[in-house]
């Protein structure tokens, strides 16, 4: 049993001591893929000593669809419809990054209005994603009221998406060259109403969830991430910020309209499940503020799409690029290589779930009670479809 204390053990990547399964002292337990406590379709192979986890192995591959291969045989315009399916609860980040990479390689400059609409779209997505996550977090600790509130409220945000983009889940709104449409009439008012309601809801959530004795008792001290783990494990986003590491691409290397938005990076002190959850709650509030700023500042008219070639035989000059953006879970990146043909030569999608759900999860699970494994997993905010693509 490895206890994560101090600097040296955090960097200790040695395999845990092999356990003698034949002794009958230990039990091997598969949690998932069919298990309600798992976020999505993946599984954990747990070795238990009593109800304490002494070893955890993550198994993925249940959702592998071969996106990176699929993209190599679709044209540049077709791919943006495919990539959004990579991370189901948060498709727009894929759309944005894919489009951004293509625009970089082909030298397209998108118009101002598209930049703002994209920013707003991404922030709305962040809000929707966090709202669902809060529900998941609460549900993982056995409380079913908050999920009912926030998941239902997320639906109102999805209604906004539906109006803005024409779809609820896979918006396919951010397209290489800009966005597909402007805002519909009356959108701004409805969006502001929903933001007001969300703010009120978050206050209530904070009260009943974060001040809940049971939730506090179970989540505090659960799965502590220490600052020295950040770089070796490649931890990003709220998971990293919760232990005081100020790391936010929106601030560090501003993209889209983030340099014109007024916000501060939120950090925590010690990154346990509670701290991470609370930080996300605050980021959800920040989201609302950012969306309001976008609504204020976004140009009301003007072009929303750059001049495009005929997309049916769109060739992009040879080149390579890496583009990144801050999604709800941290740095999301696209590495793209083109060879001057009508198809992309290679795309690699770097989702933050990969490290969080595999290396970090395997490390943090050890020593915890089996009942907390679901909560721990949710607190890392991982999406299996994004791990395997």
């Amino acid at each position, binding site marked *: 049993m490895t206890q994560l204390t101090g600097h040296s053990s955090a960097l200790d990547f040695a395999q845990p001591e092999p356990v003698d399964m034949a002794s009958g002292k230990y039990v091997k337990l598969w949690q998932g893929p069919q298990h309600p406590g798992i976020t999505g379709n993946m599984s954990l192979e747990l070795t238990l000593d009593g109800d304490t986890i002494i070893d955890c192995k993550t198994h993925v591959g249940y959702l592998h*669809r071969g996106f990176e291969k699929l993209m190599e045989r679709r044209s540049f315009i077709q791919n943006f419809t495919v990539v959004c399916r990579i991370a189901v609860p948060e498709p727009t980040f894929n759309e944005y990054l894919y489009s951004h990479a293509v625009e970089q390689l082909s030298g397209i400059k998108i118009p101002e209005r598209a930049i703002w609409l994209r920013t707003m779209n991404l922030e709305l997505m962040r809000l929707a994603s966090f709202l669902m996550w809060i529900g998941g977090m609460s549900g993982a600790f056995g409380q079913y009221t908050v999920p009912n509130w926030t998941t239902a409220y997320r639906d109102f945000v999805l209604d906004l998406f539906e109006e803005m983009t024409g779809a609820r889940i896979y918006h396919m709104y951010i397209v290489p060259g800009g966005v597909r449409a402007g805002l519909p009439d009356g959108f701004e008012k409805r969006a502001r109403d929903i933001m007001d309601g969300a703010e009120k809801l978050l206050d209530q959530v904070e009260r009943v969830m974060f001040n809940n004795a049971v939730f506090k008792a179970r989540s505090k001290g659960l799965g502590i991430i220490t600052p020295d783990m950040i770089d070796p494990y490649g931890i990003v986003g709220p998971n990293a910020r919760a232990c005081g590491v100020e790391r936010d691409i929106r601030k560090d290397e501003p993209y889209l309209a983030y340099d014109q938005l007024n916000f501060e990076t939120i950090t925590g002190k010690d990154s346990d499940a509670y701290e991470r959850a609370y930080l996300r709650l605050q980021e959800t509030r920040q989201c609302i503020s950012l969306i309001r700023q976008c609504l204020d500042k976004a140009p009301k008219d003007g072009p929303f799409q750059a001049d495009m070639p005929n997309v049916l035989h769109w060739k992009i000059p040879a080149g390579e690029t890496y583009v990144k953006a801050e999604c709800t879970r941290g740095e999301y990146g696209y590495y793209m290589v083109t060879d001057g043909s009508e198809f992309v030569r290679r795309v690699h999608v770097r989702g933050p779930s990969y490290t969080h759900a595999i290396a970090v999860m395997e490390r943090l699970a050890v020593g915890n009670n089996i009942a907390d494994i679901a909560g721990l997993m949710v607190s890392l905010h991982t999406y299996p479809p994004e791990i395997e693509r």
Partner: protein
Amino acid sequence: MFKKTLNTEDTLKNSGLTDEEQQLFSNARPQAYEPYPIKAVEDFANWARANSLWILAFGTGCGAIELRPLMTARFDANRFGVAGRPTPRQSSVFVIGGYASVKTLKRIIRSYEQMQGPKFVIALGICPVNGGMYFDSYNTVNQFDQYLPVDLYITGCMPRPEVLVAGIMELQKKIKAGECNGANLYVENFDWYKSNQKKVIKNWDMPDYNW
């Protein structure tokens, strides 16, 4: 250890298992569901089944994303008698949430076979119908009904919760009318389904039938 239960004549090979593991599983073939001889009783049973559709909580693909709104406050499927269950043994409805990768298909089959009859399968989205988004992917199956019998398809990508509700109502209608015989179809064409499954699942290290 358990004794190997021998069926009367036609037994399963369970050939994917080692000799030791063969001891752990039955080699009996699945049996078709026989309706009650009295029609009124069967009708009553169907009515009861239709109004307590318990969904197996197994998010096999993207479709799972819309099951959350479906089950929470806004669409509140509980009022239609729908509930999520954590284990196949308690569930009567298997929702195939979109595409099935080969690795998941194996788990889907195990889970499905463990479910108690009468059981129903709903397939969400385009991928189970004809491959959908991943029709040319090397790791997903295209026409899902080659591997498991599907009682109802709800197309869309993703199908919205509203249409899921509509689908559930449609399923209820079909169950009440006694038309949902997917599970019996599976038993009747067992060998065909098995051979199709084995065509795509290369490492068949599981019993031919789990119950």
